[in-house]
């Protein structure tokens, strides 16, 4: 298990969008997925996740729908919208550029 690490400021939206780009998930599922993908290195606070979800829903990046889970519970599933996909691309590009620049500075300095 990797060392636990706080989420970098402003990256939660991108991560959530990215996770959702693979298919619909509920809030719990998103957290599970994030932890799983980061090999439990990333700890996402519920207190940050839900406000972020509602905010993105409000902006039209994701859509929510009440569905029944595999073990017969009602849960709210989120899917990416077209606008969300675009937003993900923008954020991804921004992120790539940023990390590249930072990496370059760190290496050459």
């Amino acid at each position, binding site marked *: 298990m990797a060392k636990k690490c706080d989420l970098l400021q402003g990256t939660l939206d991108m991560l959530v969008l990215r996770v959702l780009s693979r298919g619909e998930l*509920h*809030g719990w599922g998103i*957290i599970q997925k994030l932890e799983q993908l980061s090999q439990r290195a990333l700890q996402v606070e*519920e*207190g940050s996740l*839900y406000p972020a979800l*509602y905010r993105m829903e409000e902006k039209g990046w994701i859509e929510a729908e009440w569905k029944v889970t595999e073990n017969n519970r009602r849960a709210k599933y989120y899917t990416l919208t077209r606008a969300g996909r675009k937003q993900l691309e923008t954020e991804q590009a921004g992120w790539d550029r940023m990390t590249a620049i930072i990496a370059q500075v760190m290496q050459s300095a």
Partner: protein
Amino acid sequence: MAEEMRFHLEQRAADLAADGVPGEEAHRAAQRRFGNLGSIQERARDTRGWCGLERACKDFRGALHQLARAPGFTVLAIGTLGLGIGANTAMFSVLNGILLKPLPYADSAQLDRLYRATAQQADGHFSPADWRDFQRARASYGDAAAYAAGHTSLSDPGQPAEMAYAGRSSLNLFSLLGIAPQLGRDFRPGEDTPGRDRVVILSQRTWTNRFGGRPDVIGRTLRIDGEPHQIIGVLPAAFNDWRHLGMVDFFRPLAFTPEQATDRLGTSLRVIVRRTPAHSRAETAGFIAGFGTRLAAEFPAANAGSTWRMVSLQTTVVDRQGPVMMKMLIGLSGFVLLIACSNLANLYLARTMARAREFAVRAALGASRAQLLRPLIAESLLLSLAGGACALILALWFRDWSAVRSTGENGEQVFFALDGRVLGWTFAASLVTALAFGLAPALFALRLDLNTTLKSGGRGATGGRAHQHFGRSLIIGQFALAMILLAGAGVFIRGLHDLNHRRTGWESERLLTGTLLLPAAPYAGPEEISAFHRLALERLSALPGVASASLSAFTPLLNWPDTRRFHVEGRERPPAGHEPAAAVNPVSHHYFDTFGTRLLAGRPFLDRDRAGAPRVYVISQSAARSLFGTANPIGRRLAPVAGDNLVWGQIVGVVSDVRSIESETGPVALQIYQPMAQDPQRRNELAVRTTGLAPSSLVDRIRTTMAELDPDLPVRRLQTADAAVARANYQLSVLRDILAAMALLGLGLAALGIYGIMARTMAQRTDEFAIRLALGATIENVTRMVLAAGVKLALTGSVLGLLGAFGVSHLIASSFPGMPVHGTGVLIGTTLLLIAIALFACWLPARRAGQVDAIAVLRAE
């Protein structure tokens, strides 16, 4: 949302349970991990769009709570807003009702009034011959209609005779205005010839009041001036619009006898034109002016020196004083609002200062600027809504008052409807006011330095020097405005009082006046009229308690509108149209005794000055001076200008000048009297001077006497001369009442303002006073200090306001040339009054300075 989060929690718990954590434990751990459910939900909610509404509701609930916790502030603020905006709304409804609301005619922008200006009268009217010439000449410049209005008597058998205000119009008046009768028909061609003109169209008001709005009224007869007329139509309610012809009870067609049709001297026709789009407004106006010039050249005897002009119909709804009155009303009500605003600002400032510590603490705990501002804005909005509602109530009340106050003799009312425009104005004004004066201090508060406020403990609420300066300049401004308001109202009240009590050349004690109109049918010629006059005066003079009675064409109360030109014997004749003009009043022979007009030389009219006797005149003092200088006028001869056959009459007496109580006229015109018997009039002013008895007790006896003479003859407006005077200037007295109310309002608000700020200063300086007292200052010293500070503010404001007050009294003097204006006295009085009020308002809190218990206050430190 809650369900979604519950699902999450349960999943987590299940997850933990799967890891081997026992059920109860797992739940708690899940809770721990999740954090505060409520706070997360709240934060989540914040990100949603509709939360704006929810948050606004919360803000408003909070604001309500805050306002309820400070009832004094709330009541004062709402009351101040309500009064200030209410005064403004009421005045705006007047402006709206008079000037902004379009006239109820079709395409009224194309409608214009024509006026004929002469040296005596700027807004004069037209003679039948001029009107007929104009009808022939106007050709392609559009359509024109003429009308005249006057008093007639209505006498249905078995009902007491009444006077009615009746119009006569050209056949096309209603079609030109674009108004069709709601019942029956319009006039038909041919009904403008004498004999066929006994048809009448009723106004909606007359139809309702006199005929109960019954539809079978068409075809019935109405006896007007003793002649039966057939009712052919009823005008729609829109025609009741008081701004124009709405006060007319009914219309008959204008029908000229051949003799009347060629008359160029009697100018009673009003003319309205509807322009055609074929010509521009300027072209039409040019044509009208040119036509007037042509008439003046062609008929100098009647028209020399007269000019024609065209004025948009919409602007003619008010007389010439109207716009000035409107500006005064709107301007002064604006001042009231400004005073109210600055009061509000002071109130708000005080409240925000008092809460400064609370804001500082909240800001220190991380509240954002927006979070601090929102409740303040919510409070302002609530206050403005409540204030606006109060203002509406005030405006409604004013509407009812003005309707009652303006009720005329025929039951007509001037009604200022509160339409959408007025409502919009009210709430826009209250919103702007509350936001501008609620937000400004709020912003002020947010500029406070947190540290200073927190450090200075409970006393941090005093605010900085700048705040105190701000509050004081508001008070100075208030007093300046109050000064202008008070001075304006004062000058006007005093002026109107003097005007109403001006009796130049006559006396009003023990005097009764009334109007009567002899119908043409039974009183066809001069002999019949004179016979009635003699009989009526004989009977009236014989009544017990009557000192003398007279009949005349005019009374000294009002201006005499008719002027005639005269030749003076033994003088070179000036070119036609430039002879001296004088107002002529035909009077019965006891007229001068009855009105108390003093005879200065010669003799009054006597019983022997009858129709067949040599013509005689009595002239006024200024006429004598103007026509004959210092020479003796008695025995000189005058002749009215009329073609070549001059009829000379001898001047037998000189009487003092008479000045009316109207506000418009400036200098006194030349006045000439002639015996009523030598120029009998159908329209008469009756005057009775009583001996000692209270004149009003004679009213019924005079009515009975006249009814015995002719039951069809109504005597209108039979009342004491003093009451008639008050009635004559009643429009001005409405204005006076409004001005007085606004001045009182302004004064009250200003007093409240200075009281508030002094009371606050007192509360803030208690410690200082305690120290002063402890160090040996006497209570008088401290009280005087407080008083001096307040009076200084009031005095500064009043002196600044004096400048504006001079302006207002100038404005009044120039718009009401007939009104005596005593600026200086009123201004001095006003200043003293303001200082006195300020002293009193400061004394109330200053009194408390003496009650400061130095030991207790200092120990509390």
